């Protein structure tokens, strides 16, 4: 049996790989969406935070012998703390002025972080091994899927759903959402809004770091790993609708699959297909597929 000229098996295999990449997009765009939704900041440092997360994993293994599972917890905490510092010292000064300043500041931070790591480690990068428990591959019949990649899909879906649940279904989440609508009023009810905003940025940064740790065994840990990915992730957020949590998760997964299939049918276009979709979506629905029209 064939679909669009390629064997069904190969087709299913490519769908699966698209899903793996899509889950990275989903996790990263989720963090961006949360930060944009609550802070109104377009966080261009997101790719750098993702890269730092991967490096924290690599360094904790290399220098302290801490394995992957520790890194999964440690890296989000370290990068989250870094997020707190960035928010308290820099971002909080920008909330009342034009969003372009936030964008420029975070872009600058990303360049600095990349530069520092490049100077320290070079661009060829470091090798991070797949954790022992997840080594090997499973034959799914239509393809041989490395166990680790299956774990990535599972873990990122779990994290995405948990984040969505916290924001949309809990009391804390309702404070967060109310805080974005009208911070003054929420503050008047006795909620510490600045603290909430700070923790939100830290959580977004932590999500990026977690994605970085998940990616470390799959791709080479390099200072450029963030900037190679972040532009696509921004496109994902724009397509899904800035600030929409569920939108960015779904869009991330779907675009991962679309990109994967493009790699089969017209590989040369695989790096631009996401942007073509973005342009079309912006023309038809400027607020994004899941965004609310202003």
């Amino acid at each position, binding site marked *: 049996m064939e679909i669009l000229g390629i064997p069904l098996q190969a087709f299913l*295999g490519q769908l699966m*790989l698209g899903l793996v990449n899509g889950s990275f997009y989903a996790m990263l765009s989720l963090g961006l969406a949360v930060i944009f939704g609550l802070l109104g900041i377009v966080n261009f440092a997101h790719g750098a935070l993702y890269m730092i997360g991967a490096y924290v994993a690599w360094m904790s293994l290399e220098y302290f012998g801490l394995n992957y599972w520790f890194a999964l917890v440690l890296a989000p905490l370290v990068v989250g703390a870094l997020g707190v510092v960035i928010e308290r010292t820099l971002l909080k000064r920008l909330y009342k002025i034009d969003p372009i300043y936030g964008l420029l500041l975070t872009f600058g931070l990303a360049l600095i972080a990349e530069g520092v790591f490049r100077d320290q480690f070079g*661009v060829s990068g470091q090798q991070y091994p797949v954790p022992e428990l997840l080594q090997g591959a499973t034959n799914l019949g239509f393809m041989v899927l*490395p166990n680790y990649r299956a774990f990535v899909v599972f873990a990122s879906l779990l994290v995405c759903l948990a984040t969505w649940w916290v924001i949309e279904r809990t009391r804390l989440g309702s404070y967060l959402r109310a805080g974005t609508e009208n911070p003054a009023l929420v503050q008047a009810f006795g909620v510490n809004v600045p603290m909430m905003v700070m923790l939100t940025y830290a959580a977004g940064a932590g999500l990026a770091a977690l994605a970085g740790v998940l990616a470390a065994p799959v*791709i*080479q840990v390099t200072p450029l790993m963030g900037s190679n990915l972040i532009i*696509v992730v921004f496109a994902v957020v724009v397509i899904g609708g800035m600030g929409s949590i569920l939108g960015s998760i779904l869009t991330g997964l779907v675009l991962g699959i679309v990109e994967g299939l493009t790699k089969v049918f017209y590989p040369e276009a*695989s790096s631009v297909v996401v942007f073509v979709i973005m342009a079309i979506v912006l023309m038809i629905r400027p607020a994004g597929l899941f965004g609310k029209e202003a």
Partner: protein
Amino acid sequence: MNLKKIPTACALAAAALFTAATPVQAQISGDVIKIGIITDMAGVYGDIDGMGGVEAIRMAIADMGGAINGKKVEVLYAEHQNKADVAAAKAREWFDTQGLDMLIGGTNSGTALAMAKVASEKKKPFLVVGAASSALTNDQCSPYTVHWAYDTVALAKGTGSAVVKAGGKTWYFLTADYAFGAALQADVSTVVKAAGGTVVGSVKHPLSASDFSSFLLQAQASKAQILGMANAGGDTINTIKAANEFGITKTMKLAGLLVFINDIHSLGLKTTQGMYLTDSWYWNQSAETRAWGRRFFEKFKRMPSSVQAGDYSAALQYLKAVKATNSDDADKVLEQMRKTPINDVFAKGGFIRADGRMVHDMYLMQVKAPEQSNEPWDYYNVVETLKGEAAWTTKADTKCPLWK
């Protein structure tokens, strides 16, 4: 960045005009010899050349005493971001306003082909070290382009024929989607077919792709024996990594068509052992190369790649020719370089052919197993030496009008 201010540039321009008007007098324009290098500093190829390449050029200048016949030697460097337009614009700026005497072309063939056009228009020597495309000395050859270290034909003749000889008859290519990838795939295909092999398919991937698994699955579905990786740097690294993860290496053999020592260092010997590759130079070949390699290591904390050694050699030979002619006039210096055999740490008995190819030996290497490696960066066994002309484009194949 080592750029001078506008008044200096005006002074240089005036000086250049002055010397042009009085050809019998002092032959070194602007009283300074300027060597420029435009390469990838921060991108995927940054480790292969980058600041290490600049350091190697500085070593060549130091070995010539920092000055030629009393005229100071300076080095300018810039990043081209792997963009041909950026590279060409910077080269033009340096030739027009900085009084640049010689340009060294770094990694990335797209940028090198663009800069070659500028150098040829400005009639200045352009020594290409980092870029691979054989077009530089073939259909796009120029009297001002010298291709120094290696090219896609040599890589093809080295790795391509060795792999076919070892039984790898059917090939599938994974190719970086720009000038270099296309040239490498074409050159290897020719060698494979001539040796009795077949090419069953290929897939193009964008430069610095983030994930290679999809391309690899397509390659595996082709049932070819050999996966020819017509890419370089970070892309090759991530291809090899994913190929191991997906078990591609169980059904296909990987042939790295352009692999540098930095890639091996980054991936580790466990992942890369047994792989064949072709390179123009290896630091651990002889007492002389080892001494130079260690000298570089002391300054840069990494062993030099073949490209960085090539940067050194190109700068050194250029400066020797300037010294011999006491001139920085492009035609005189190039004429001197063409008639002088090249003997330095990079090449022995090398010479520059009419098409601009610097002909020297190339080496087919095999990556050592971890237990064979005696020290960090001790990664290769030299399996075969491709002597002199054997490695390069032949007179029968060339389309270069300068070599007919």
